[in-house]
Structure formats: structure tokens, C-alpha cells
């Protein structure tokens, strides 16, 4: 009985130490998941947005971003990055060259996290 308790405790200890070690070793990069977006997925906005912002769960390579916004008539919206954009970061920001007309817009993105994992996604929002 004593032996079994010791072995049980040992296994728990090994698991706990391994877990702590891995947590401690966890760097701040991984697969980039979309955490927040403006306009958000499925949003219906009254005022045409002039800026698009996508915030990711980890740092991404901002020089290796594929991002498109396609409007209700199938036209691609012209976007421009902010001046002096850093090479990496958690957030993509783009400014629309012209006001968005009413209708549904599809945002499609593909990014590369700084450790080399690709992720992608898409969503829509509506302008009233």
C-alpha cells in the first residue's frame, strides 16, 4: 500500500514537473489564430469602416501577409498598410482607399506566424 502510494505520488510529481517545465518553456509564438477583428465576423455596421484591423493570438510576419477584402459586386477593395509598419507584430491594420458602399464584404487572410506556421481564415461583414 505504501509502495503504491509512493508510486502514485511519483507519477503525479513527474507529470506536474513536466507540465511546469513545458509551460515555462512555452515561447510566445505558435499557430496564429484570429483573436479580434474590426469590423468583426458577422458584424453589421451602420457607418462604412475606413480601417480594417485583425489581431492574432501570436506574433506574425507582417511582411508575409495575404489579405483581401472583396465587396458586394465582386470588386476587391484597395487597402494600404500604415506607414512605417513593423516587420512583425500581432495586428494587421489596413486603411481602405475609398469609403465602402453598402453590402456584404468578405475578408480573407493568410498569415505566417514568426515560427513558420501558416494559418488562414475568412469571414464576412455587412455595411448598411
Amino acid at each position, binding site marked *: *500500500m505504501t509502495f*503504491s502510494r509512493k*508510486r*502514485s505520488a511519483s*507519477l*503525479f510529481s513527474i*507529470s506536474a514537473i*513536466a*507540465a511546469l517545465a*513545458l*509551460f515555462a*518553456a*512555452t*515561447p510566445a*509564438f*505558435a*499557430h496564429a*489564430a*484570429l*483573436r479580434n*477583428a474590426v469590423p*468583426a*465576423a*458577422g*458584424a453589421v455596421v451602420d457607418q462604412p469602416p475606413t480601417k480594417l484591423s485583425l489581431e492574432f*493570438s*501570436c506574433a506574425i510576419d507582417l511582411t508575409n501577409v495575404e489579405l483581401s477584402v472583396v465587396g458586394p459586386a465582386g470588386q476587391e477593395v484597395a487597402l494600404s498598410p500604415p506607414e512605417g509598419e513593423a516587420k512583425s507584430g500581432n495586428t494587421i491594420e489596413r486603411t481602405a482607399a475609398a469609403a465602402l458602399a453598402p453590402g456584404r464584404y468578405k475578408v480573407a487572410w493568410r498569415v505566417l506566424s514568426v*515560427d*513558420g*506556421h*501558416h*494559418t*488562414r*481564415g*475568412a*469571414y464576412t461583414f455587412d455595411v448598411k
Partner: protein
Amino acid sequence: MRVAFAAAALVFASAPAFAHGYAGQRFFPATILLEDPFVADELGLPTYTHMKGGEEPGVREDELEFEFAKRITSKFALAIEGAWIHENDAGESVDGFENIAVGAKYQLLVDEDAETVLAAALDVELGGTGSSHLDVEDSNTYEPTLLFGKGFGDASNATYLRPLAVTGVLGVAIPEHGDSALVYGATLQYSLPYLHAHVKDVGLGDFMNNLTPIVEMKFETPLDGDERTTGTVNPGLLYSGQSVQIGFEAVIPINRESGDTVGFTAQLHFYLDDIFPETIGKPLFD
């Protein structure tokens, strides 16, 4: 020889960058009860399960399990798993290690647009590697399995169904001595991360946006003899962090042969490809 060479070439063929549980924009979390339909570098440590009457009526069981999977190529992975079990039968206790199991898995298909994955696996329980006083099998059991996953992100006319995904397994457990059994199961998962990022941000908040409510089901039907089908239905929640996943599920036996009462299981799961992307978290050959 030529066939073997062709098979090896297929296994080691380069493939697009692919890692744990992604098919396009669909992320499939690692499931606790059922094997995942994708190859990955991952560590389940520990998985704790508490049940009563799982193997024998009236016996309380506590099990600590570990599983480690390593990609050899981006499409092929090897795995090893083991478990320590403690049984208590009306005050009489016994504990020890179950047989070690090893496995190989090959990613047959990843269709990013259809959010579909398909894999084939072969698991082998190595007879006689566990504690002899636990009455473990002393011969090997082979279990070839087909595994699939499908996300419903392409259900464009049903907005709130798009976060749904299913995974499933179908296999046969073939012991060297004894009767074979059909092993099958499925999971139904509703991905709140998918809802938030790809369908509609309904304002659930960061914590909820990482949760996936899930129901896992796994059954075993003997192919010979009069024994009944056994299995459990496990409803629960999976929390997917940046490099770690935590899961908690109830374990509901489908009949008396599967368990006496509702148990529970919990798992700490590490995505090694995210934690160690340049070392043990990447394929040995890419």
C-alpha cells in the same frame, strides 16, 4: 522490394506545411477518448480517468495515462502510450501499469476547402509489457483503424451550423489469442473559436472563444461470442490555449457492462509543434 520502396517514397514524400489539427481554417482540437484524425507532435500528460465498474463490476478505477506522438514526416507519425491504474474493490487495492501500446498513423487526405481530413492508423498493444498482477494480456493486440474529420464551415446557408465538426474512427481489434472486436466511435464538436473568428463574433469573451463543447462516443462490439457491445458517451469541454489544451468530460457508460456509474476524465495536452517548433515539434524528415 519495389512495393516497399514505393510505400517508403509515399511516406516520406514532402507535403504542405501542416500541423496539429488544421484543415484550412478549421482547427480540430485533440480529443480525449477518440484518436485524432491527423498526425501531430503532441503530448497528452496526463489523462486522468475515474470510473466505477469499467472493467469489473463494483471496482473503482483511477487511471493516469500518457501519450506521446512524433511526426516522422509531415504525413507520418509514430506514437507510444501507457497507463498506470489503481483499482479499489471494497477496500482491497491493487495498482500497476497497463500494457504499453505503440502506433503508426498516416495522413491520407487534408482537403482545406472542404475542411476534411482522413487518416489510417495501426495501433499495437504489446502483450506482457504491463504489470503481471493486473492480469494484463500477455499477447499482442493489433488494431488497424480508419479515422476521419469533417468541418461544416462550407454550410453557407446555415450560419450557426458552420462551427460544427465531426470526427470518427472505425477499426478492428485483433488479438493474437481470442476474439476480435469492432471498435468505432465519433465526436460531435461545436467550435466557439470557429464561430468567433469565421462566422459571427457574438461577444462571448476571450475565455469562451477558446472553448469547444464536445460529445465523444466510443464503442466496442465483439465479432464472435455472445458478449454485448460496451462503450461510453463523454460530453464535455475542451479549452484550446496557444500551445496547451485542457479537457474535461463526463464518462457515461452505455450499459452495465460498460460501467456502474458516471465517471469523469480530464486531460492536459501539449501541442509540441507550437512549443518546440525548431526541435521535437517538427517532422524528423521534411
